[in-house]
């Protein structure tokens, strides 16, 4: 088959492909217009806030969610540093690549520069570049990463995993299940497993500027407890108790996201972190605690049993 015929075939293919794309996009339009009760109960909401449309710029949308934990700021710095370093080297290599492709383009009769790259002068340049990459990327990342999590050589090593204790710390047990988050507070008597324990579903209410100590154990499969505004996530496992702590420095409502595939409705496991002023929290806790005590179901005590207790360490 000659080249001309091939060209023709190709043009026909392009028309078909273009027509195909047009059909697909117009079909989507028509579907949307005719869309009445297509998939009924499962129809997903596109906007969480009803029809209120606030248009945000690209930079607004793709800023990280505001961080409410000082550790989160360290992470943002670490991320920025790694990105800056990577971007620097990537721009450099892109410029070099483009330069070579444009200025070293094949010319008949021209000869490439024959070298295996083993001469001492090349080794010097390469070693210099390798060391520069190592210091500017690896070492910097290493330092910044450990600045955030605590250096292995310092006294604050692994501070993000060192769960705080003391009378001022808010302790909460978290038990995710398919597909909701259960939270349990110890109530006014400060002991878990008593009648005044406060149980909430999909709502974690904590006071501002107080350390919150979480212990998690899943009821069924692995779930990922993740608060984007805090920049920390930990997997909740059925086989062991995992730990996480944070301290929110702003009030507000923040979303808790499940970060580990846990089944069909993994995407619907939304919970809310509600950070409130300390006095608001204290009064909420007192009120809920006494209500829990009063409405304790003596006959069905099993439903209050989670099967695991608060670990002192």
């Amino acid at each position, binding site marked *: 088959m000659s080249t001309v015929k*091939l060209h023709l075939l190709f043009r026909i*293919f392009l028309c078909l492909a273009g027509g195909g*794309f047009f*059909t*697909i996009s117009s079909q989507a339009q028509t579907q949307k217009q005719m*869309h009445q009760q*297509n998939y009924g109960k*499962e129809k*997903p*909401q596109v*906007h*969480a*806030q009803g029809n209120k449309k606030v248009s945000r710029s690209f930079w607004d949308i*793709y800023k*990280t*969610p505001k961080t409410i934990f000082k550790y989160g700021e360290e*992470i943002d710095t670490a*991320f920025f540093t790694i990105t800056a370093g990577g971007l620097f080297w*990537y721009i450099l290599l*892109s410029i*070099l690549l483009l330069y*070579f*492709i444009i200025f*070293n383009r*094949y010319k008949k009769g*021209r*000869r*490439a520069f*024959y*070298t*295996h*790259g083993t001469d001492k002068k090349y080794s010097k340049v*390469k070693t210099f570049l*390798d060391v520069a*990459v*190592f210091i500017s990327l690896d070492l910097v990342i290493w330092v*910044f990463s450990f600045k955030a*999590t605590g250096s292995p050589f310092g006294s604050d090593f*692994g501070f993000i995993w060192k769960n705080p204790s003391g009378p001022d710390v808010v302790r909460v047990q978290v038990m995710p299940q398919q597909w909701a988050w259960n939270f349990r507070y110890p109530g006014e008597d400060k002991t878990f497993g008593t009648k005044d324990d406060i149980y909430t579903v999909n709502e974690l209410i904590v006071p501002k500027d107080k350390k919150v100590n979480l212990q998690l154990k899943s*009821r*069924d499969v*692995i779930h*990922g407890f*993740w608060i*984007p505004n805090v920049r920390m*996530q930990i997997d909740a*496992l*059925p*086989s*062991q108790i995992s730990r996480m702590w944070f301290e929110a420095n702003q009030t507000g409502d923040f979303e808790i996201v*499940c*970060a*580990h595939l*846990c*089944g*069909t*409705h993994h*995407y619907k496991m*939304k919970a809310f972190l509600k950070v409130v002023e300390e006095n608001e929290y204290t009064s909420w806790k007192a009120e809920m605690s006494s209500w829990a005590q009063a409405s304790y179901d003596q006959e069905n005590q099993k439903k209050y049993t989670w*099967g695991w207790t608060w670990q002192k360490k």
Partner: protein
Amino acid sequence: MSSEHPVSNDPRAEQPIHHAPTSFISKYIISFDHKVIAKQFLFFGIFWTIIGILMSVMIRWTQAYPGEAFPIIGQLIFPDTNGVIPPDTYTMLFTMHGTIMIFYSITPILIGCFGNLLIPLMIGARDMLFPWLNTLSFWLIFLSGLVLLYSFFVPLGASAVGWTSYPPLASSPWSPGAGHSLWLFALFLAGMSSIVGSINYISTVIRLRAPGMGFFDLPLTIWGLWLTAILNALFLPVLASGLLLLLIDRMFGTAFFMAGAMAPQGTVGDPILYQHLFWIFGHPEVYIIILPAWGMVSDFLSFFARKPAFGYKATAWSLTAITILSTLVYGHHMFTTNMAPLLTSAFTTLTLLISIPSAIFFINWLGTLWRGNIQINTVSLFSIGMLFTFGIGGLTGLHLAAVSTNLALHNTYFVVGHFHLTMASAALLTTIAATYFWFPKLFGRLMSERIGKIHFWTTFIPLMVIFTGMMIMGYIGLPRRYYNPYEYEIFKDTLPMNKLLAFSVLVAFGSLLLFLFNIFWSMFFGKKASDNPWNVGTLDWCTSSPPAVHNFDEIPKVYNGPHEYSHPKVKDKDFIYQNEYIEGVSRKLDENA
């Protein structure tokens, strides 16, 4: 067959020319010829690639047009929901997309097809050391594909627990039905296929290299394929053990990975054990996929810059160093599993170390292009495109290596963007380059350059757009494996970006169809190729295209390295064949070689 040949110390000498097969079955179906098996792997891989990419189109559609029917085939496949993809099907789609692309698409084509085709040809052998094992390797993956295909038609559907298949979700209480059990069995067979193939690759390279071909005269493609085979042989058994234990859990009520309320009374299982077993394989697996690509790109850049590979030995040593290091870093996939802080620091440190050898061979690639005489054709375009995609992909691995940023990025689209840039872009672009390059060796014809260039731009740009877009979304925390993220305040504004990604995926899918058209049209009507259309000197081009069944009339003797281009003393052409002796340039053959 084997009884006719006396046992000898030098298997190279024992490569008699057998009669070529004559019947249709022995020529094309049950063949022991590595070139035919390579083609079988290629067509097998192409079939599954189409399915896998179609699934990715469906996934992006769901993200871009939530609640809307999938066009054209939606009503056919999902009649109960009026063509809309339901959430449980969505979980099946991303599970199977990952599984298919890794085990049934990239591995069979990059390692199965090109490993089989190139290892004997490039080292100057008549076939693999174990032709029977070679045939077995293909039919095992074929059987595995049948099992996986069957799993789509069982009552509760195919596996839907993520390609990583973590228990407890993947255990029977939460994933009842045969779908996932069949998946486990299919992957077990696929693992066996790769193990068997790897034994062949490793031993063939060690034992059947032609006289004069030392390890440092091998093309870097063979280095990549050989190191890959070593990782495959070492770590697939670990995966197989994890899969088998999970399968036994599902079928016989054991509790290796069961814990908590659903575990049988008195048992002490741990789902984290599975994660260890999986990732001890899983991390080397991603290097298994990229190592042949690194080797091939190193060669292609040298071939088309008409210049020796800059720092060949350093590159070979770097590839080896990465192979070894890759075995020590798997924990960075498990930072969120309540791991001890010291251990996370250790894994972060080791993972960061991998960037050192990576930097070495990347700089060597730039050195190869520097002051070269660069031919721009489809092969070199795809190779240079690989450098751009691998640049971003590799550098974003650093964000994930550091444990602090990992905790903010784990299971977000940042991870998805990162591994797609390194696997679905870098390894894929190299696979495509390899197809264009070795097409004459497979089919005796050249693929169309014109279509190839359009294919390049309509693949490269969408890939960069899609996966960079994913990383931007992952940066703000968009989680992966979410059917509908728009119910969350933080993520509701990512819809326009997802629409852009869906459009790009459509363009890339069209480009894939264009590529397939190019392959199948050129097979029958492409321009007939000369024996050495690329003017390259490695041993595979020292014989006809396609080669005779016995590859070489005479086992070649190797006098030169694989990258002798633009040698100042050779005036009539700008390359030297590896088996061509030129006085004053080539080295003499060692008598013991």
